[in-house]
């Protein structure tokens, strides 16, 4: 009787924390792999509309982004408040689209150049005028695969 009690009372086994770093590392690697560092700031205000027939864009490297919306408040003094287009990290004109797309394709291997998708992130409250112009420009540039970025409708 007393033999057993003595032994247990003396050294209480603590919870082993030696596997804690491993668990944390696993979480760490998960977040490291899913993290996409935000490249460049978005200078136009965009709230994407919602839709139900959505397609997921799988390969990030094959997507060129086109942002359209009203300039953010801090840029309105120089750019005005009319909807503008942003390519890469700067405000651009319609004529810049072709060059922008070509620049993106330059980095890709030959067999993937036809798979490029233009993802248009457009604010839901602007009018179609500028969007139609961009669409025409994309057609002229031969960039026919277009994705209108949208949220899932509930």
């Amino acid at each position, binding site marked *: 009787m007393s033999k057993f009690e003595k032994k247990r009372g003396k050294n209480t086994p603590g919870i082993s*924390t*030696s596997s*804690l*770093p491993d668990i*944390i*590392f696993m*979480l*760490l690697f998960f*977040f*490291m792999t*899913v*993290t*996409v*560092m*935000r490249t460049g700031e978005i200078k136009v205000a965009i709230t*994407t*509309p919602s*839709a*139900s*027939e*959505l*397609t*997921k*864009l799988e390969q*990030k490297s094959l*997507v060129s982004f086109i942002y359209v919306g*009203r300039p953010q408040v801090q840029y309105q003094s120089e750019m005005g*408040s*009319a*909807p503008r287009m942003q390519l890469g990290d700067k405000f651009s004109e319609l004529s810049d689209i072709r060059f922008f797309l070509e620049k993106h394709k330059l980095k890709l291997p030959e067999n993937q150049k036809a798979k490029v*998708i233009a*993802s*248009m992130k*457009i*604010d*839901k*409250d*602007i*009018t*179609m*005028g*500028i*969007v*139609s112009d961009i*669409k*025409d420009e*994309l*057609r*002229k540039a*031969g*960039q*026919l*695969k*277009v*994705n*209108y*970025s*949208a*949220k*899932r409708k509930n």
Partner: protein
Amino acid sequence: MARKSSRDRLNNEVNAGSMADIAFLLLIFFLVTTTIAEDKGVLVLLPPWSPEVPDIVRLKERNVFSVLVNANDQLLVRGQEMPIGQLRTTAKEFIINPLKRETMSESPKKAIVSLRNDRGTHYFRYLEVYNELKAAYNELRNERAQQQFGRFFDDLDQDQRKMIVNEIPLILSEAESTSFGEEDK
């Protein structure tokens, strides 16, 4: 001698207790900077550019499902005003034409959707209309897939999908926008 050897053994162990803290710090950093990339949207294939205006007049009127969206975001579907809630069912009925009416498409293969908007139309309304038209086609394809293969369209293999897309092709033409309404300034 015995004492010395025990000290040696102690010194040789690397203290791994702070490892967790370091990992935590990194973890928190990545947690904060992560924006899980959610890039979804309505995928569209634009028609190739051609300078001449397409000649819609050639087509039989019964095969054309024309949708006009004006600057007030109102819809005119085949000459009739329509709330957007009815667009999907109307489009489906038009494409399939179950009652074989004279006024609707001869067959799904010949049906053409013609979408035209104003430069003053709001973008969300345009996308809503596009989404409804796409949804109509997706539903029809799904129904056909269920009938023929007893499975959803998304679960079919490539040949079966091709077959159904062939039967119900999405032909959507977008005419040049009108410019009656006012654009954003």
